């Protein structure tokens, strides 16, 4: 196991923990985006570039975007 792989594994574990520990959905949405990028790097490090691409476009862009838009709608309706 090389250094890149080890670092990526540790960072993914740390980012995942951060997503769970943050309890505010807005902060979680941004943290989950970061988690998506790190998971993409991990997939790339284990030579799975196809999965890495999917993970980055869905995990780092599409998913946080949907969460942010849903949050904006909910907060707007609460006023």
């Amino acid at each position, binding site marked *: *196991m090389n250094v890149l792989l080890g670092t990526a594994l540790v960072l993914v574990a740390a980012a995942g923990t951060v997503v769970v520990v943050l309890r505010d959905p807005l902060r979680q949405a941004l943290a989950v985006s970061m988690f998506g990028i790190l998971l993409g790097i991990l997939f790339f490090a284990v030579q*799975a*570039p*196809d*999965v*890495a*691409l*999917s993970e980055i*476009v*869905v995990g780092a*862009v*599409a998913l946080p*975007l*949907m969460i942010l*838009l*849903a949050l*904006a*709608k909910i*907060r*707007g*309706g609460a*006023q």
Partner: protein
Amino acid sequence: MTRRTRLRLFLVSAAVLAVVVIAGFGKLPVFGHPGPTLGAVLNTLSVPQRHITDVVTAVNFTYRGVDTLAEEFIFFAAVTAVVLLLAPGNDEQADHASDAATGRWVPQTSDAVRVLALALVGPTILFGLYIVAHGHLTPGGGFQGGVVLATGVLLVYLAGEYTHLHGLYPDTVVEGIELGGASAFVVIGLIGLAVGGTFLATWGPLGRIGQVNSAGNVPLLNLSVGAEIGAGFVLLLSAFLRQTIVLRRHPPTRHGLGSS
């Protein structure tokens, strides 16, 4: 259930789970050494047999193409459901476009963000098309490229206003593209059934290994998936943005409640 019983229940279940997981991990192949498995067979077969240099694409679109078809329609059903859920309700009306999160200071989009987003629209769409078109040669394909294409549309929103995005395309055209992409996959498969005897059998020219116009049906399949996924994500974005930015809930006036 008291806190104490709950804790006991958790500890017992966690112990059982730990035993099962540790026993399971013991049987896994050594990390980084998968051993002689199906992967080795596919690695040696996919280039000479299918003229596909990206083995993942070879698996997704030829060796288990029917699974990909099912995944296509899972996505199709999910998009349909979300668009239905987010459709304007009876008590909702289109208002002037504004940020729904009232009660807080919203900074103006800076010129730097607008210029950067505008400059990225063209390259993003080109990159999306590249990823779709080279799915059989390099990592990527219809799904990844489709989402990148939809990101290009999102950049238009980031560079301008919601009204610009709204005027850019009618929803019916995007729905048509999504439907066309999803059905093209089935049609390509049915042609294979008619010509080669099995669903999704290769009927396109295999071509020279490493060229864009090679690998039989796979570039066509990637194109159909790219159209479906890209259009689906654009529909999702449109529905979410419409709900967030222009639709406001008005109490029904027939009850005489008026607006609050």
